């Protein structure tokens, strides 16, 4: 058993400040590195979904002729939301294996690492948000009070993503191909989510199964408040909250149990 007693000179308040500073510093480091490595820097976070959107517009408006009103806002919101979770999960999976130095640092809270990655993703999301708002404006959508619910949805998505990031990061220590496998699965998930098509187009016999995926509920809720300007389906939102609240401790527990072996395995 290892017992670390922190002394009275570092009470809980300092500990909280410390976690805030740690997460902020490492998020800023990630952003700085992204910014320094390419001329476009943060711009990349916008260019990729915009290019995807251009392809979507071509394929689904002109070739397949999907009838969804305000398609640009519809597809772009789906893309942004899913890009956050997708890239955060993919990066979080490689966290432990690529951060040897941090894992070996005495007293370092390893459990903060997935939170840092998901936070970095959130910052990218927020940086791209003005572009989404421009699309909404172009599509003639005016804001309503429902947009005030956005932070709650962001919080739910944050918790949900972190919950999955924990076990995946731990699994990648035992099985080094977890990240590659996950890349393929996330690519498939992209097609299984209502990103470039709408939930209504799913056959009614499959609707129930389709809604098991919490990401589906989340995407719908986002669009309800952003595009339709209505308040979302409250029971579904509550369910989402309960699911996130259950998954987080499970994911964290798995990570914590495995974390004792990290140093010897990497």
């Amino acid at each position: 058993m290892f017992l670390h007693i922190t002394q009275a000179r570092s009470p809980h308040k300092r500990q909280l400040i410390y976690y805030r500073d740690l997460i902020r510093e490492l998020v800023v480091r990630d952003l700085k590195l992204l910014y320094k490595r390419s001329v476009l820097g943060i711009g990349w976070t916008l260019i990729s979904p915009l290019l995807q959107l251009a392809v979507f517009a071509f394929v689904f408006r002109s070739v397949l002729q999907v009838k969804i009103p305000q398609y640009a806002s519809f597809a772009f919101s789906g893309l942004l939301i899913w890009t956050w979770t997708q890239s955060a999960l993919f990066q979080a999976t490689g966290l432990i294996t690529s951060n040897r130095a941090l894992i070996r640092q005495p007293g370092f809270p390893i459990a903060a690492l997935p939170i840092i990655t998901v936070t970095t993703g959130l910052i990218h999301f927020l940086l791209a948000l003005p572009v989404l708002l421009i699309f909404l404006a172009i599509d003639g959508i005016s804001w309503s009070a429902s947009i005030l619910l956005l932070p709650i949805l962001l919080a739910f998505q944050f918790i949900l993503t972190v919950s999955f990031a924990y076990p995946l990061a731990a699994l990648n220590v035992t099985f080094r191909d977890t990240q590659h496998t996950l890349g393929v699965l996330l690519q498939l998930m992209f097609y299984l989510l209502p990103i470039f098509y709408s939930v209504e187009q799913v056959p009614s016999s499959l609707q129930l199964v389709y809604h098991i995926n919490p990401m589906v509920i989340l995407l719908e809720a986002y669009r309800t408040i952003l595009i339709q300007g209505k308040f979302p389906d409250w029971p579904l939102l509550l369910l989402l909250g309960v699911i996130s609240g259950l998954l987080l401790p499970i994911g964290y527990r798995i990570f914590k149990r495995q974390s004792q072996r990290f140093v010897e395995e990497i």
Partner: protein
Amino acid sequence: MHYAITAQTVGKRYNRYHADRPRTIMETALWGHRRMKPIEQFWALREVSFAVMPGQMLGILGHNGAGKSTLLQVLSGVVHPDEGNVQVRGRMGALLDLGASFHPDLTGRENVFVSAIVAGLTRREVERRFDAIVEFAELHPFINNPVRTYSTGMLMRLAFAVAIHTDPDVLFVDEFLSVGDLAFQAKCLSRIAQLKANGCAVVLISHNVEQIQQLCDQALWLEQGQVRAYGEPNGIANQFADRMAVKNQMQAFRTYSKQVEIRTVRLWDAQGKPLSMIHSGDAMTIELDYVSHHPCDNVIFSCSISDEAGQIYCNTNTEASSLSISLDPGTGQTRLHLARLDLPGGSYHVNVGIFAAEWSIAYDYQWQAYPFQVHWTPNEQTFLYPPRQWEIIPSPSVKQIL
């Protein structure tokens, strides 16, 4: 006052896996779960116990693979012990993988902030120490350049400066002083001494026996994951150095040229009778018969006494006594008279060797070939049993009972 670090019967077990243990999901799916299981387990550490007070320094000695680094990892909590308890009180600092958390594309300033916060400081605390860190590292003109432009020495200086300014209550140091120039090493040592004086407990891994003797209050000698010796650093460091020397000697002289051969060794007591057992403090004469096949100049005779474990207690040679010995072909005899052998009881061996001038060739060497016993009555743990006498002087201020 509380201990800063306590370790009680700490054990760490590692698994050894099948050589082609599956490392991927794909392989596991193909070959099944069987090969995932460890084929063997071994203890990297076992039954390790010690305690360090605030302001004390513990030196850890041991050969490669003795478990020193594992012990440091267990103490710092990055590896969990399978047995026993470790308790650490206060903020931990470490001089382990210096500079490993630096990112080459970030500037010195940015890296100082990242690594100091990773090491446990809040942003405010780093801001307050920033100037001191840069000054200590002597990197003021370069602090805004990316660290990929730094030399290795500069990197190490910066990393050390950060690590040492985190105000740890407990500091773990893994063999760091191969770093930087001598002046900087001296600066680092004095900074560690300063931390120690301010009540920081230090655990130091070092191969440098003198360093352990000079700096540490306690020493722990690990051998194959177990404590070989624990306690006062001078004695333990010397024992360790001897053991290293014997090991090296054994390896160096595995074959002997036999130009001069040892024929036999006899042990005599003070009365000139053959002995196999003496009492502590008795005299002993070691007689060596040799045969020389060629004329040789400046021959060295060497003689030592060791215990069953190979620990050398007494070691002398003719060169040390400034004797210049030339041998003609033929047989001869050499005697070493020991006026007293103040050894505690136990089984010992006499080791003898004959070497060419300046130890260039080992003509012959016999390790632990001639045993003898020392008879012993006092119930004491000691390495040496000199003639002794206690004298109790009654103090006027202390009232004597009875």
